[in-house]
């Protein structure tokens, strides 16, 4: 099974002190009030994913956000997944519908 995380904020189970500190060093942020984690620095994003996978005991994927329509969508099913070096990482992208829809694209361009 694969765990899908929200790229903005996400919750983790209670962590051991060392693991928590390690995640903070790797670039995560923790909001005490909401008890939610978020990504502060993307410099070590692959290591963050590895650590999260170990903590949650499963593969981790993040939802992508489309820069055109704003929808969240998974990398699964993307035609370019084999050549993408940032697959499943929480970065912006363009969803397949927006990429193929010329009319929508022209509307998007006029908005800019």
């Amino acid at each position, binding site marked *: 099974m694969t765990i899908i995380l929200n790229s903005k904020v996400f919750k983790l189970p209670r962590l051991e002190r060392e693991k928590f500190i390690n995640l903070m060093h790797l670039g995560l942020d923790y909001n005490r009030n909401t008890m939610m984690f978020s*990504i502060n*620095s*993307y*410099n070590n994003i*692959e*290591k963050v*994913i*590895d*650590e999260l*996978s*170990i903590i949650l005991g499963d*593969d981790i994927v993040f939802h992508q956000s489309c*820069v*055109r329509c704003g929808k969240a969508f998974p990398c699964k099913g*993307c*035609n*370019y997944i*084999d*050549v*993408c*070096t*940032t697959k499943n*990482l*929480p*970065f*912006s*992208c*363009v*969803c*397949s519908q*927006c*990429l*193929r829809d010329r009319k929508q*694209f*022209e509307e998007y*361009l006029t908005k800019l």
Partner: protein
Amino acid sequence: MQKQTELLWVEKYRPKKIEEVTGNDEAKVLFIEWLKNKRHTKKAVLLYGPAGVGKTTLVMAAAKEFNFTVIEMNASDTRSEKAINAVAKPATAYKSLDSFSDGTNKSIGNILFLDEVDGIAGNEDRGGVNAILKIVEKSLVPVIMAANDPDIGKLRPLKKVSLLVRFQQVRIPLIIALLQKICLLEHVKAEFEALERIAQNSRGDVRSAINDLQSLSGENHSLTLQDTMMLHSRNKDISIDETLRRYFSTQSIADTSSMLAFSSVDYDDFLLSVADNLPKRYTDTAELARAYEYASQADMFRGRIGTENWHLLKYFFNALAKASAVNPQSYKPFTFITPPIRIITLFWTKNKRNILNNICAKIGEQCHVSVETAKLTFIPYVRLMLQRRRNHPIVSSFKLTPEEVNYIVTMGRY
């Protein structure tokens, strides 16, 4: 002045605003926050990532948007201590008086931009890194650096004083979207599949994708998939960590082979890293044994390749790929051991090896033998003699220091 129509599209469509820079939104936010002084915990910023992903473009667009004057030094300039001090010192030693006014179009001051700092090398650029370090410490204006490879040793001091902002390869859909936009503005009728192929071929390099689009679309303003057939694949640098990650998570031998062919990691280091990490990858001993068998075959091929038989490289890749695909279904993420244990060990034992070499050089001088011979045939006996009697006459004969005597007596091997 060049007409707009004669311009390279890379220049013509170079983003003028920050929001126009394609991809790497997270890096953009971090950089802009730093530039606006919100995250000024470090005095300089180091933007790093592959070529053509928008590092320089972002700096130029941000400078334009915030009305900074860019003082730039790039790889085409000599960047010795003297040259850097001549250009960068005056630019960073004072704040512009304009910065106190909020005039609409006036420059609010300088930013120093040192592009391709990883290219500072050789005699011509002697003292360059130290000069930059001093400038960063004393600078009154933002200092921005850009590099493709931040992991090279000489950049370590610069990394300590800089906020690091990583740029990733731009995603294929984002490049396609940008190419679509350019096609629309240039009235090029392009097949979607052709744009797709250009974007995929660029491997995340926006600059090369735009150049390919311009060269292929030609004067007839049309582009078909057939036109893109002449494009050949670009080899991009993939770090050893990333290569290991992809190597171990692979699903097939063919995928791993082609991934290795695209990577430019040092094959010897990579092989050592694979050997170190195999026990973490395979918990089943039978699978681990098979994987090591393939890794040893790869090692054999690497030996045969040497420095000239590169036609054997495919067999090396194939054997190595087999080691990764013994049981693809059993893959679970784990933390990699890098750099290779052997290299770490060599690093940690450097001092000890130096002491032993000094001792052997002294023995060699007295006994007229090479250092190697002294190490192999003399040291075991000298050790035995000194273990029995620390002040043995050979100590003065070989002119050994007390530290060297202590080292020989307590050394583990032989």
